[in-house]
């Protein structure tokens, strides 16, 4: 996913997942960081928090889970018609075949983009998102602007991402207000007939699986 812009956590590679800034860091800690440390320490002091459980969850959400999983699902669907059929019929079972299950991904529905339909996913009430397939959501997905506008002016939002669609394409906006989590199956780019699954994975940016981007053509990928 080198073309995706979320490989950012250089400063916490020491820990392997989100922890606090190292005291070696030159920056003073922000008040928010100090408050978070205080909350964690106070809960540990009272026996109300398991540090190893937090670390395990963070390791999972930041490394095991992530858009590399979603991209694998997409590439598999592009190359394996039987898998694609199972994926669209029962997303939860099909992604479980690849082992991409877990919290915020128990019930998965995959929605397919075609020449006639473009899907995009939002959570207007909070930030529901398929963690096992896509990891943590991007800042824009959690923004007030996206939550407000995706369901009322989706094409204006898509235009901000450089996605413009003919008026004849039906835009479908999925508001994940219950426990179903959505993954968009983008259209396979032209000129990729000869590519194998691993090469195709690299053409699937995270945003294409939310619905605010297209899959990349091989030249871009």
């Amino acid at each position, binding site marked *: 996913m080198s073309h995706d812009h979320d490989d950012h956590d250089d400063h916490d590679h020491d820990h392997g997942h989100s922890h606090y800034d190292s005291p070696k860091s030159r920056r003073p800690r922000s008040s928010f960081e100090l408050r978070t440390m205080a909350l964690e320490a*106070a809960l540990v002091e009272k026996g109300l928090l*398991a540090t190893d459980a937090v670390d395990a969850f963070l390791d999972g959400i930041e490394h095991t889970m992530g858009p590399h999983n979603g991209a694998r699902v997409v590439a598999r669907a592009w190359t394996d018609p039987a898998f694609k059929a199972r994926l669209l019929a029962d997303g939860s079972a099909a992604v479980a075949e690849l*082992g991409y*299950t877990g919290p915020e991904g128990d019930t998965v529905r995959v929605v397919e983009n075609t020449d006639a339909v473009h899907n995009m996913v939002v959570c207007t009430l909070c930030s529901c998102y398929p963690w096992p397939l896509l990891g943590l959501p991007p*800042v824009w997905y959690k923004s007030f602007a996206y939550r407000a506008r995706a369901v009322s002016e989706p094409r204006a939002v898509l235009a901000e991402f450089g996605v413009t669609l003919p008026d004849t394409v039906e835009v479908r906006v999925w508001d994940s207000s219950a426990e179903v989590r959505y993954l968009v199956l983008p259209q396979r780019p032209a000129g990729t007939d000869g590519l194998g699954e691993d090469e195709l994975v690299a053409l699937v940016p995270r945003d294409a699986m939310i619905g605010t981007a297209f899959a990349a053509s091989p030249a871009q990928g």
Partner: protein
Amino acid sequence: MDGIHDLGGMQGFGRVNTPDSGRTHDEPWEVRAQFVGLLSKAGTGSMRRRIEELAPAEYLASSYYVRWLAAAENTHLRIGALSADDLERWYRHFEADPAAEVPRGDDPALAERVTARLSSGRPLPDAAAPAFRPGDTVLVRRMHPTWHHRCPRYVRGALGTITFVCGQDRVPYDDPTVEEVAAVYTVQFSSLDLWGRTDEPPFTVLVDLWENYLEAAP
């Protein structure tokens, strides 16, 4: 509750795609704050509800992860699991000593359950006796719920079509001990029935709604 978190259709928030908004977060403490809140054993109940309870002005003024942090602090204070003094004492400790580390409190059995959960899937069970079937026209009830719910205001009073029966799930309420379950449906709306004619060609909005938010179309 019908709080500030219910943003669908609101205007005035500006652009979605802004510089750096493709990142998942900016600071390491941010995700940690979220998961410390989620994994607390203090019995905070749904953190979603706790975030919705933030004062509206605070909700809008705070970043996503500051909302998680503030909600976690508030809730632990409110239920008496922590005192303001606990938080202030530790805050001053870390402020005074940049090398101070957060103490660990391991619980290998819980960590093992978390790890197991991270690779388990628990799809919703089938709905036992759904009142509606795909193709049925339904009306989203008008309501003014003071309790936690997942029915956005922008679909209230609108007609939609049942597209999927998603399964059966616990109805979201404040009280986690309430064990009411109901069918959950994907309900499809035409943008014309939500917003009338706008600058954009008509489009489709699909929202997952519990059966108790719906009634048969008149």
